[in-house]
């Protein structure tokens, strides 16, 4: 296991390193000087030079890459060209919306998918199964931002149960904060819940045809208790893998959903930064999201290898 861990950790570090190079080079292609952008067209040459030196823009590209990389490792993402505040602070503030939103959506997705998948598998070929499968087809096909708009239109505008957008802030209490995030989280969770339901259903169906399940039934165990005591645990492995991978999709998907609900999270920050050509913010947020995606994938791989030792030896 230790050897496997070391190998995967090296691969993780390499992926992140190459991703950082790709990101830095891509952003460096952009024409224009951030210092001129910050000071405007009437800036004095010496002021411009001073700012360029302050931002480290007078240094060579490899030196700047190195400083950006080592800075990030110490939590320093540089200074926003537009707001002139540390990018790390901006990300830190926005993270308190995007991360809870993602986790909330993951929770909802699981809460829908597990019972729905188990229900469909246990009623294979019957009406209940067909109904759940049909719903998952719709869930996978529905654009989540459109579903979000429909939720706002019905629950916020028509019924007035929720606010149509914005975030009240965690200082208003946990419940008020969660209420602000409920509609966005449902919209974000729906397609993932549909995918997870399908995985849960097919994984459980595979397990149900195993010999040990037949043995359990032959020993007099009811179908329900055989599923709960033996089937579910074994069906969980692929489900957990997908669940882990969904975290990345939800984190990226949150960028879109935040725009529908005007939530001041990382997504809105990215779009504002693109509009204002504040590329250092774009670069940092994208790097952070890539880090999250790669790390979660790594953790999923690790958990999978821990559960299934064959994977360790195969690698």
């Amino acid at each position, binding site marked *: 296991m230790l050897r496997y861990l070391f190998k995967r950790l090296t*691969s993780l570090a*390499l*992926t*992140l390193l*190459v*991703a950082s190079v*790709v*990101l830095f080079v*891509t*952003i460096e*292609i*952009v024409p224009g000087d951030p210092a001129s952008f910050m000071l405007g067209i009437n800036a004095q040459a010496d002021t411009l030079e001073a700012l360029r030196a302050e931002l480290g823009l007078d240094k060579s590209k490899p030196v700047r890459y190195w400083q950006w990389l080592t800075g990030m490792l110490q939590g320093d993402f540089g200074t926003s060209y537009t707001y002139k505040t540390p990018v790390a602070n901006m990300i830190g503030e926005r993270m308190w919306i995007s991360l809870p939103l993602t986790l909330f959506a993951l929770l909802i997705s699981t809460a829908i998918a597990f019972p729905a998948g188990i229900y469909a598998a246990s009623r294979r070929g019957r009406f209940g199964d067909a109904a759940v499968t049909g719903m998952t*087809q*719709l869930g*996978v*096909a*529905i*654009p989540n*931002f*459109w579903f979000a*708009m*429909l939720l*706002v*239109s019905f629950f916020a*505008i*028509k019924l007035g149960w929720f606010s149509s957008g914005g975030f009240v802030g965690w200082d208003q209490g946990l419940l008020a904060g969660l209420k602000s995030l409920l509609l966005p989280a449902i919209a974000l969770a729906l397609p993932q819940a549909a995918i997870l339901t399908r995985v849960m259903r097919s994984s459980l169906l595979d397990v149900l045809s195993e010999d040990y399940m037949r043995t359990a039934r032959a020993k007099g165990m009811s179908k329900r208790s055989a599923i709960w005591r033996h089937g579910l645990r074994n069906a969980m492995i692929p489900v957990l893998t997908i669940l882990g991978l969904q975290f*990345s*999709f939800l*984190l*990226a*998907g949150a*960028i*879109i959903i935040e*725009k*529908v609900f005007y939530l001041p999270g990382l997504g809105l920050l*990215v*779009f504002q*930064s*693109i509009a204002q050509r504040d*590329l250092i913010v*774009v670069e940092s947020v*994208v790097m952070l*999201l*890539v880090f999250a*995606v*790669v790390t979660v*994938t790594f953790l999923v791989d690790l958990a999978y290898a821990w559960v299934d030792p064959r994977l360790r030896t195969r690698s």
Partner: protein
Amino acid sequence: MKLRTLIPGALLVLIFLLAAVVSFVWTPFDVTKLDIPNKLQSPSMGHWFGTDQLGRDIFSMIMVGARTSIAVAFIAVGIGMLIGVPLGLAAAANQGSLIDELIMRTNDLVFAFPALLIAIMITAVFGPGAVNAIIAIGIFNIPVFARLTRGAALSLWSREFILAAKVAGKRATRISFEHILPNILNLLIVQGTIQFSLGILAEAALSYVGLGAQPPIPSWGRMLAESQTLVSLAPHVALFPGFAILLTVLGLNLLGDALRDWFDPRLQRLRS
């Protein structure tokens, strides 16, 4: 084949394909012509899907929007296949070699950037637009096809007919294209259908956030973005483009399911 998914799936896809093709020569109204006095009209015999906030005919815009969605998704799948499949074949033909390792690690790298992040980076650098949306979705498709091809091809390399081709003196590249590719084509077609539907969703999402097709080219995602503040006032403005996306993706998914069953008789038997 599962007819109950094939027929509705193929029908839905055909309707939107037809709408896209016909829109090149005919639409009920000119989508670039504004008609403010007739803005936000409810669906009627004159305007089947009503009009939007600028008085444009929504039915005509959906027809032209189908063109944008289908074109972006189709080309993006094409990019993914044209680059991903040869890479996957090369990796499988040289399993365990440096080339295999390099291709698979590059794939891991691209996978680390969800399609939306690639699109954000590309538009941050080159500006928003349909072409950049195609590139972003296309880049994301490359590792999907490369992995699928590699996995499927690897299982074929140990088969007798491939060994026979090797003994006959055929080179790995020729074997890959003459013997391996035709045998994995069904898998690629099924995956292509799935990626196509994901491409439609991705294009809509990118256009919705302003990173996809730009005005005056109509796109379903941007139609939804423009209708966001009008949902309660004139729901039809948001409902029709949303249903267009939903039905196209649903059609492609149903078609994909039917094709998978058709190509995999084992699965067909299991299901029945």
